[in-house]
């Protein structure tokens, strides 16, 4: 039995096509992936992200404990700000990637991937310290990502004069009709935008209010299909595809979210060893050189007649009109501009290793 979000009836009402995603019955598209992608790049799109999980952490030892289970430096967070970070296993592999917000001194809020809620919670509970209160609030909250260049205009339409927009990675906690809303200036699309979390019982009203107020800006409800093409154009990793328990954040090229000098944390020793020995493989973004079928995950990556790796994520980029992807390959081949080949149904097509992001706003 698939899990559903509080917005599930709205998705059905809007005629969305639903698919299984990490145990959830979620909209993959409402109208068309290309249309929805375009709406986010040029106006606004609204995504149901209620399947994502939330944990709260508080208590006198909260900061110290979080700094021992997460890779980024929690001490750098001021109240009202957030950071991207990783939860690692002892060998430095990624259990999950998440965003941690500091709500007040020693009070934190974590937003984790839907398919990892139980695993993250179990892992963190197992490593819990005295003096820390750790609660799984997943299910209490609904989430709506409002993404696109006109998102700030929509924020002003709702809150103009009453609240000022949070800056990038900041979070605003407010009450609407007596209900608590978290509004973070974060996203997974590369566009300006907000992620709004509210009590599950307010999901339908909030969703419909956002779509109604957003109509003047051309807002569209968007599914997981465009969420994937948008994030891949930006080279944002998807856990389970580009991140895994057998790959470190260093291999994924995300070391800026790992503070090796902050003191000990789970996985640190393994990362230091890997760094000292030389990072063996690298996650590289690539673009197909000529017209070709779109690359897809698990397609082989070849160089000089030898398979050197596998595509972790691939798609046709709606913005670039060409195939794009990311792949883990040996560090010796991970050079900007290097030509590799992608095996598509037994034929090999040339691709070029690019800088990230693959899509840049003109």
């Amino acid at each position: 039995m698939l899990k559903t979000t509080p917005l599930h009836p709205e998705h059905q009402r809007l005629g969305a096509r639903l698919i299984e995603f990490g145990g959830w019955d979620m909209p993959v598209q409402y109208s068309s992936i290309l249309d929805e992608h375009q709406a986010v790049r040029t106006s606004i799109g609204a995504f149901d992200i209620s399947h994502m999980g939330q944990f709260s952490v508080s208590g006198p030892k909260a900061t110290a404990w979080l700094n021992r289970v997460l890779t980024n430096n929690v001490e750098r967070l001021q109240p009202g700000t957030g950071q991207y970070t990783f939860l690692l296993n002892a060998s430095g592999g990624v259990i999950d990637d998440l965003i941690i917000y500091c709500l007040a001194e020693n009070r934190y809020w974590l937003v984790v991937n839907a398919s990892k809620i139980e695993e993250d919670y179990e892992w963190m509970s197992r490593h819990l310290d005295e003096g820390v209160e750790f609660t799984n609030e997943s299910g209490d909250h609904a989430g709506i990502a409002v993404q696109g260049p006109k998102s700030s205009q929509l924020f002003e339409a709702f809150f103009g004069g009453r609240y000022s927009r949070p800056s990038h990675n900041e979070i605003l906690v407010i009450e609407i009709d007596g209900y608590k809303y978290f509004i973070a200036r974060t996203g997974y699309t590369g566009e300006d935008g907000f992620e709004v979390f509210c009590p599950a019982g307010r999901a339908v009203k909030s969703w419909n209010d956002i779509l109604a107020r957003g109509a003047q800006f051309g807002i569209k409800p968007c599914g997981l299909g465009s969420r994937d093409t948008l994030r891949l154009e930006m080279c944002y990793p998807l856990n389970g595809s580009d991140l895994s328990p057998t790959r470190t954040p260093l291999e994924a090229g995300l070391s800026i979210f790992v503070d090796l000098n902050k003191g000990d944390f789970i996985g640190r020793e393994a990362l230091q060893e890997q760094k000292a020995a030389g990072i063996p493989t690298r996650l590289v973004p690539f673009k197909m050189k000529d017209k070709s079928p779109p690359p897809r995950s698990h397609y082989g990556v070849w160089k000089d007649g030898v398979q050197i790796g596998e595509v972790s994520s691939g798609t046709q980029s709606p913005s670039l009109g060409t195939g794009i992807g990311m792949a883990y390959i040996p560090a010796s081949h991970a050079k900007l501009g290097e030509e590799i080949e992608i095996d598509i149904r037994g034929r090999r097509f040339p691709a070029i290793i690019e800088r990230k992001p693959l899509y840049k706003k003109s």
Partner: protein
Amino acid sequence: MNIPDNLLYTETHEWLRIEDGIATVGITDHAQEELSDVVFVEMPEISRELKPGEACAVVESVKAASDIYAPAAGKVVAINEELVSNPALLNSDPYGTGWLFKIQLVNAEEISGVKSAADYAEQVG
């Protein structure tokens, strides 16, 4: 859903129009809607001999690659070059400019395993 009366259909959502022993092949309106946004079409080679039910072309949407099956035995005599350069035609005009390829049928009088518009409508309805 558009299912023209004058065409034949397969279980796997191809349509064919037979004229002078040559079948023009495409995919149905229902199929293009299911696939959504087609971004790439891989055609069979000209002169390739096809067996009925053989995977002979690939239609790729943003999300997935789908095989297209030969609706009858025959030799590929033409492919839709315009569709290769503009795959979106498959969504906008599946029975017209979005046709895929043409095959010279081995036996135009006897094609098995295809169905009428009414039977196909029942299948997808």
